[in-house]
C-alpha cells in the first residue's frame, strides 16, 4: 500500500511540478506576448512558430496557456491558503467551544447548502470580475467544507488522552490549542486543502467560462477555453489544449492529496469524508 501511495505521490508531484515550472517560467519561456494582437494571423493552425496555434485575436495560444496557468495556479493557491486559514480557524473554534459550534456551524451549513459554484458565480458577478474577486468568491464557497473537516479533526484530537490530561492539569487553552490540538489537525487540513486547490482550479475555469472570471485580456485557462468555444470546429486547438493543462494540474493535485493522505495517516479517511 505504501509503495502504491508513493507512486501516486510521485506522479502527482511530477505533473504539478511540470505545470508549476512552466507557469513560473512563463515570462522567460513563453515565445510571445500573451496579450499581443495580430489580426493578420487570426485562428492560425499550429505550426513551427506558433506551436499551439493562434486565437481569434491572433495571439499565441501557447504563450497564453503558460501565462494563464500562472493565473490559475495563483488563484488556486490563494483559495487553498485563504480557505485553509479561515476554515481552519472556524473549525477550531467550533470543535473546541461547543457553545459556539451550534451557531457557527449552522451558518456554515447554510453556505454549504448553496451549490458552491452557484454561490461563487453570484458573488463574482456581484463584486465585479477581477482576480481577487474570484479568489474571494471561491474562498467563501469552499471555506465551509474545510471548516467541517477541521472541526472533525479537532473533535478527534480533543478526545485524545494526552489532550485530556493536559486539560486536567490546567494548561491554558491558547497554549493547549497551539501546542497539542493544532499540530494534530494539520495533516488532515493540508490534505483537504490540496483537494480544495484542485477544486478551485476547476471552479476558476467555470467562472471564466460563464464570464465572471478575471477580465480579458488576462489569460486564464478557463478564459482561453471560453475564447475558443465558438470555434471548436475551425480552431479546436484553442479550446482543447488549456483543457489538457487543467486536467494535468487537477489530476496531479488529486494524486498529491491521495499520496499525502495515505502517507500521513491511513485512518484519516474517516475525517476526510
Amino acid at each position, binding site marked *: 500500500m505504501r509503495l502504491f501511495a508513493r507512486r501516486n505521490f510521485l506522479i502527482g508531484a511530477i505533473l504539478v511540478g511540470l505545470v508549476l515550472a512552466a507557469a513560473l517560467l512563463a515570462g522567460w519561456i513563453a515565445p510571445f506576448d500573451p496579450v499581443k*494582437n495580430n*489580426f493578420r494571423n487570426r485562428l492560425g493552425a499550429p505550426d513551427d512558430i506558433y506551436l499551439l496555434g493562434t486565437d481569434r*485575436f491572433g495571439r499565441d495560444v501557447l504563450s497564453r496557456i503558460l501565462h494563464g496557468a500562472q493565473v490559475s495556479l495563483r488563484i488556486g493557491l490563494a483559495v487553498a491558503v485563504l480557505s485553509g486559514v479561515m476554515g481552519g480557524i472556524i473549525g477550531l473554534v467550533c470543535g473546541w467551544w461547543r457553545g459556539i459550534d451550534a451557531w457557527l456551524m449552522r451558518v456554515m451549513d447554510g453556505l454549504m447548502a448553496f451549490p458552491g459554484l452557484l454561490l461563487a458565480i453570484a458573488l463574482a458577478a456581484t463584486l465585479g*470580475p477581477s482576480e481577487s474577486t474570484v479568489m474571494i468568491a471561491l474562498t467563501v464557497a469552499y471555506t465551509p467544507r474545510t471548516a467541517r473537516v477541521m472541526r472533525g479533526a479537532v473533535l478527534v484530537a480533543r478526545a485524545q488522552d494526552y489532550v485530556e490530561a493536559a486539560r486536567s492539569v490546567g494548561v491554558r487553552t491558547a497554549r493547549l490549542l497551539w501546542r497539542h490540538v493544532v499540530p494534530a489537525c494539520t495533516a488532515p487540513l493540508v490534505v483537504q486543502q490540496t483537494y480544495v486547490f484542485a477544486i478551485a482550479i476547476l471552479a476558476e475555469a467555470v467562472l471564466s467560462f460563464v464570464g465572471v472570471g478575471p*477580465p480579458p485580456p488576462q489569460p486564464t485557462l478557463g478564459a482561453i477555453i471560453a475564447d475558443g*468555444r465558438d470555434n*471548436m470546429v*475551425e480552431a479546436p486547438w484553442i479550446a482543447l489544449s488549456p483543457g489538457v493543462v487543467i486536467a494535468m494540474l487537477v489530476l496531479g493535485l488529486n494524486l498529491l492529496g491521495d499520496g499525502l493522505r495515505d502517507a500521513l495517516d491511513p485512518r484519516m479517511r474517516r475525517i476526510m469524508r
Partner: protein
Amino acid sequence: MLRRRSFTAGLTAAASLPLPAIAQSVGQQGRKGGDVIVAMTAAPPTIDAMATTAQAARNISMHMYESLYTRDEGANPQPELAEGVDIAADGMTYTFKLRGGVKFHNGKPMTSGDAKASMERYAKLGGSKDALKAVAAFETPNASTLVLKMGSIFPGLIEAISSPRAPFVIVPEEECGKPLGQIGNIGTGPFQFAEYKPDSHIKMTRYDGYAANKAFDKRDGYTGKKTPYFDSVTIRIITEGGARTAGLQTGELHVLETLDVAAAKRLKDDKGIKTYTMMPWAFLTLMMNNNWGLTANPAIRKAIQAALEVEEIAAIASDGLYRLDPAWQYPGTNYFPGDAGLDAYVKQNQAKAKAALQAAGYNGEELQVICDSSIKWHLDTGTVAAEQLRAAGFKVKLNVMDWPTVNAARVKPEGWNLWPLAMGIEPYEGPYNVVGFFAGSAPVQIKPDPVIEDSNKKLATQLKLDDRKAAVKAFQDRLYDQAIAVKVCDIGVIQATRANVMNYAPYRTQRMWDCWFA
C-alpha cells in the same frame, strides 16, 4: 385643411440602404407546412414588443405584431396596418386611415380604438416613446381613422413610429391597460403566439386568418404582401455559437440569426447550407466621456483617435466582416453626410498620438475603459483598443463587467473614459436616434455639446429634407472636430439557412413569412 400627399414620395426621395440584391424568385410556388426552427443568440428580456429595444425581442415580435407604418427593404417608411397618412400642411395633424378587414389573433377586428389605446400605452412605456412627445392627443373620429394632434411640429414622426427599434405595435385595446412585461401576446401578424419557454424557445403558429396587405404585390422589408407558409415557427435560444453552427450542420436548426464568420468560411462548400451576408449591419463605435478625467480634454481625445488602428479593431471584432467607413450615416442613405476629408481622422498615427499626448502634458493618469462581456463585438473592441492605446503610451485600465454593470457605469458622469458600443438598429432607422444619442438630457458623451444640441433640434423641427441633412452633416463634423466619439467601422453579419429553406431573404431579423420548405 388637409393636403393629401404620399408620405414616401414627399419625404424620402430615393433612400435605399445598400442591401444585398434580393432575389425575389418569381414563378416559384410556396408550399404550406412544416415547423421551421430558428436559432437566436440571446434570450429576450421581455416579449412585450413595445417595451424593449433588444434585438432578441424583435426577432420574435416582428412575426406576431404589426404597426401603422413600418420599414421596407430599403429601410424607408411604408404603411402596414394603415392605408396611408394625410399630413396637414402645417405639420400639426396626422390622419391615418386604417386598413379594413384586419383581425387580431383572437378574432377581434382591429379598429381605431385599438390603435389609439396602443399608441397611448406606447407613450407611457414604449422603448422609443420620445417619438410621441410632440403628440398632444390621439383622436378616433370613426372606427377606421386615427388622428394624431401634434402639440409641436415634428417632421420625423413617421420615420420614428415606423421604426422597428421598439416597434409601435397595435394590440387589442383590452390589453393596453396591462403593465410592462405582462401583456397578452395578441397581434395581427402572420404568425400567432403558441408557447414561450424562457431560456429554451418560443413557438408561433401560422395565423390562417391573416389579412395580407393588398397594396403590395410581394414582401417588402417588414411590410408588403406577407404570406405565412410554415405551420409553425420555433425560435430557439442557443447562446453557444459552436452549438448553433453544429445544429445548422446537422439540420436540427433551419435558420440562424448569425453564423460565425470563421464557420461560414469553413461551410461555404457545404451544399446543405445557404449563407447570406448583411453589410452594413451596425456601427462599431467607441464612446468617450467628454466630462471626466483624461477624455474631458479634446487634445487627449484626438490623441486617442490617432492612437487607434481602426482596421485592426474592425478585423478582430467582426471576424473579418467589416467595412471601413468613418461616416455617421450609411453611404447611399438619405441623410448620408459624406465622408470627404475624414480619411485623415481615421488613419492610425502613433507618432502623432505620442506627440499630442506630450503636448497635452499627459501625466500617466489611467484611461478607464469599461466594456461588457456579453456582446463579443464590445469585448473585442475594448480589448484591442486597450492594447493599442497602451502601445501609444497611455496607461489603460480595461474594466470588463457584465452588461447591467456597464450600463449603470456608463451613465454616470464620472469614473469612465471609453465605452465600446455596436449600434445596430439606430443607423438603420436613420439619423434620429444616432444624433439623439448624443443630445438631450442624458447625452452618451455626458457633457452636452451645443452644436449637437442644435443639430438635434433642427433634425426634429426643420420641414425641408435638405435642412435636416445639413443638421446631420453639422453633427458629424462636430464629432470629428472635437473628437467626441470614435467611429470604428461598419460591421456585417452572416445569416444562414438550410438549403431547403426556399425564398429566404436576409433582413434585420429573420422573416419567416414568404419562405417555405422545398
